[in-house]
């Protein structure tokens, strides 16, 4: 039963999510452990996430929050010592990827699900031309001739804004921003349904970053892929994403549509994040910072993982880890003391 | 500070990692055992290693002579035990000398680019010659005895240390904390001693263990051909050499000292590998 209020809220979201939508990716209670120097680290702690067709979800968190590990586990490439997926499921179009063998998974990697890693400088093979690297992916997943693959590769280059005449150039002849475009071309070459991008613009200059984000937006409109965009930059999220999930200490603590997360009610951590951003459009004497630092992943606090740094912490927060509370349709917050929508120094 | 209040220096971290490698730990234990044996040799040996006894010549290993006796009736077990002293002494002293001189040269070559070419080309000359040949030449020129052999071994081992140290210093030199040291007014010598050297030791330590292995093998070989330690000293290579004539029948005269060499070098290799692994993550950081 969908009430009028729910319907209005749903219509206000950038992406039309109804409860009948088909989940492209459904992660349920995923747990990933790392063993580091005799200690056990819960990198991903019972994370559940859903992604629809064509949706761009921003996965936000700071260093050590577990975002990259989460991404790697979707593709089954968590480095096996020391990491290990110990529980949960990752369903892609209904099939649990975690239960597949490496051989079966290879059919998905690059074709159905593609990944862009963080550092464009080291993601390309220096001894192959960029054109060959794109056509290699195409031939891996499709039965086409070399010349067909090459012409498809040239199309991909044009698509990402590189002249196709550069097919035969080597990675070292490209700048950082151009390399990242090549990497996007490789990722999209087989028209994947899901693109996972791990901090794709972090290593780039801000004007180049804008070019790449613009490219991503353009491609979003033209193609069918959904994207899981991992970043620590809320500005980037605002530029490209439809929905947002915020990670802290291996857990998702808030999730919802872009509007809800940016302007709706708040988990105290998210509130702190927004308030500690120096904002171009406003003038603040002193930045509000979140006291303390992220918890040691080998010694996570009991109860709510954020409670030692939270100014709204009470007794219940110390002992019991909160469950997701959905006060607004589609907006989930994991907190006993959800904060009202107020960014403090702006709006 | 860690939980037991001791300083959590990088050294402790290395030790923690090293301990986890059982093989390496084994190597270390064997090495320590050998050092103890060498130091306490006079108290362990049942017989005087030089005592000749014509009534007990060429006896196979038995309860009285664990390693048997040689053609002069000397107890081989005692000789092998005393041989440990030679082995360790030569190995450690030569390698240390080579390390000190080589590392100093490598440090200066990397730090003062004007000296780089001169120093490294000299090292190239030394490396260019086959080590064994170089040693033989030096010993032939100076005279066949242990002291000259040790000089030769040190000279041949030195260039490798220079190279290893230079490579590491070149990396460390470009790190920001060196620039930071300059910005707070540190002099060149302070930078070299306090900042560069402590951070350059990792590969040198690994090279050291390999160097000891090399020195032991080379000294055994040189003594075997009569260009090193002279008889009747019980250096292991000499023992093998002495047993050459009796290899067919009294095999224990060669095999047992040979085994001692194998065990020692194996242990050192394991130790070296373990050190490299334990020190490596530090470098990656």
């Amino acid at each position, binding site marked *: 039963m969908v009430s009028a209020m729910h319907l209005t809220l749903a219509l206000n979201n950038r992406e039309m999510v109804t409860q009948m939508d088909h989940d492209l990716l459904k992660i349920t209670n995923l747990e990933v452990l790392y063993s580091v120097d005799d200690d056990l680290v819960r990198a991903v702690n019972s994370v559940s996430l859903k992604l629809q067709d064509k949706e761009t979800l921003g996965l936000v968190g700071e260093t050590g929050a577990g975002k990259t590990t989460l991404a790697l586990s979707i593709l089954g490439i968590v480095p096996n010592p020391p990491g290990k997926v110990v529980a949960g499921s990752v369903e892609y179009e209904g099939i649990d990827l975690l239960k597949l063998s490496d051989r079966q998974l290879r059919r998905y990697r690059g074709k159905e699900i593609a990944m862009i890693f963080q550092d464009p400088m080291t993601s390309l093979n220096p001894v192959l031309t960029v054109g060959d690297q794109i056509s290699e992916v195409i031939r891996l997943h499709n039965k086409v001739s070399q010349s067909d693959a090459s012409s498809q590769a040239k199309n991909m280059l044009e698509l990402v804004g590189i002249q196709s005449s550069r097919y035969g150039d080597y990675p070292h002849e490209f700048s950082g921003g151009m390399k990242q475009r090549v990497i996007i071309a490789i990722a999209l070459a087989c028209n994947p349904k899901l693109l996972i991008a791990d901090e794709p613009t972090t290593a780039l200059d801000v004007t180049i970053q*804008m070019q790449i984000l613009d490219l991503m937006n353009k491609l979003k409109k033209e193609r069918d892929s959904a994207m899981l965009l991992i970043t620590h930059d*809320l500005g980037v999220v605002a530029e490209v994403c439809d929905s947002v999930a915020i990670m802290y200490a291996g857990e998702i603590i808030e999730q919802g549509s872009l509007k809800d997360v940016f302007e709706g009610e708040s988990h105290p951590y998210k509130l702190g994040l927004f308030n500690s951003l120096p904002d*171009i459009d406003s003038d603040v004497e002193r930045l509000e910072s979140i006291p303390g630092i992220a918890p040691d992943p080998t010694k996570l606090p009991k109860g709510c993982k954020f409670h030692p740094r939270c100014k709204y912490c009470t007794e219940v927060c110390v002992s019991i880890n909160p469950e997701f509370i959905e006060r607004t349709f589609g907006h989930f917050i994991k907190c006993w003391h959800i904060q009202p929508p107020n960014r403090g120094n702006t709006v | *500070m860690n939980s037991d209040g001791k300083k959590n220096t990088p050294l402790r971290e290395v030790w923690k990692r090293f301990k986890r490698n059982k093989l390496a730990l084994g190597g270390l234990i064997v090495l320590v055992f050998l050092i103890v044996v060498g130091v306490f040799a006079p108290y362990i040996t049942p017989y005087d290693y030089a005592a000749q006894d014509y009534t007990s010549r060429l006896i196979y290993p038995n309860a009285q002579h664990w390693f048997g006796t040689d053609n002069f009736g000397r107890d081989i077990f005692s000789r092998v035990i005393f041989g440990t002293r030679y082995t360790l002494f030569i190995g450690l002293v030569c390698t240390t000398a080579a390390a000190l001189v080589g590392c100093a040269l490598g440090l200066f070559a990397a730090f003062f680019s004007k000296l780089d070419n001169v120093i490294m080309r000299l090292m190239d000359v030394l490396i260019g010659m086959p080590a064994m040949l170089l040693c033989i030449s030096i010993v032939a020129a100076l005279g066949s005895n242990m002291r000259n052999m040790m000089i030769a071994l040190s000279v041949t081992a030195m260039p490798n240390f220079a190279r290893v140290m230079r490579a590491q210093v070149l990396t460390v030199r470009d790190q920001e904390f060196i620039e*930071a040291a300059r910005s707070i007014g540190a002099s060149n010598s302070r930078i070299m001693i306090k900042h560069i050297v402590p951070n350059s030791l990792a590969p040198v330590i690994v090279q050291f263990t390999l160097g000891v292995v090399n020195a032991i093998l080379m000294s055994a070989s040189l003594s075997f051909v009569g260009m090193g330690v002279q008889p009747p000293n019980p250096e292991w290579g000499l023992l093998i050499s002495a047993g050459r004539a009796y290899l067919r029948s009294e095999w224990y005269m060669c095999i047992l000292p040979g085994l001692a060499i194998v065990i020692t070098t194996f242990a050192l290799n394991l130790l070296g590998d373990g050190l490299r692994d334990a020190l490596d993550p530090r470098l990656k950081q």
Partner: protein
Amino acid sequence: MSVLLEVNELKKYFPTASGMLHAVDKISFKVESGKTLGVVGESGCGKSTLGRVVLHLLSATSGQIVFDGEDISKPSSARLHELRRNMQMVFQDPFSSLNPRQSVSEIIGEPLLIYNVCKNKEEYRERVLELMETVGLAQRYENTYPHELDGGRRQRIGIGRALALNPKFVVCDEPVSALDVSIQAQILNLMQDLQEARGLTYIFITHNLSVVKHISDDIMVMYLGEMVEKSNTKELFATQLHPYAKALLSSIPRARLDVKRDHILLRGELSSPVEPGDVCRFAQRCNYRKEICTQNAPRLEEVLPGHFAACHRVREINGL
């Protein structure tokens, strides 16, 4: 307000196989005592090189540096040693800017040892603990090593080291770029507090415009070794004159949904800083490019009161 640092026509060129690399080209500016000059630009603009040349960590190719009224362009090594007490640097990378084999107190206290500031061990330890407290490091970290601490704390160590000798002037080279967002705010607040308490003068180098807005009094924008625009912070953010500055500002992704997104997209990539010639170095990427831009390098001129820009078409583009 007195001028603490004055730089005139500073140049730093590096010889390369294909010619001279113009890393810093004819930069001139003044920094008043107690104020912060923000130096902004993207990779390859020369801002880090500029910072190092000012501190004599790199030697200038030509140009003049005047510090506290004294010409320190070519100081003797003894004079330089003395000068360093007053001119310090906070480095970008909290991981590689600290000696992994030194403990926190050793790192912070080293300047005190080098300059023989303290009479005895007790005084030394006291000074070190005082510095640790000033930068917000708990006493219990005295004997810890950098690898045991997070980026934010490591950066505090770097700041403590820079303050040990009570300098008047600190060059901060991207001090918060490598830190998580929630820690960035802590460190920025700390730096502001220190500036207020000690009357420090900063040159704050960064590529992050939002950070520089927050902490700077004046800002200069660099592109490929040259200064393309300079003004006080408020004015620069209200009005950018140079096309690059306009593009730079519009490229910052805003973390809010209510702002109109009007992105100026630059075409192409950075041109080479090697032998750039007498042209506008930004011309290749500029949307306002005309013929004169590829024939003549524009000169920095005061377009509005206190607001400088180097562009042939600056008045035209901005309707002045």
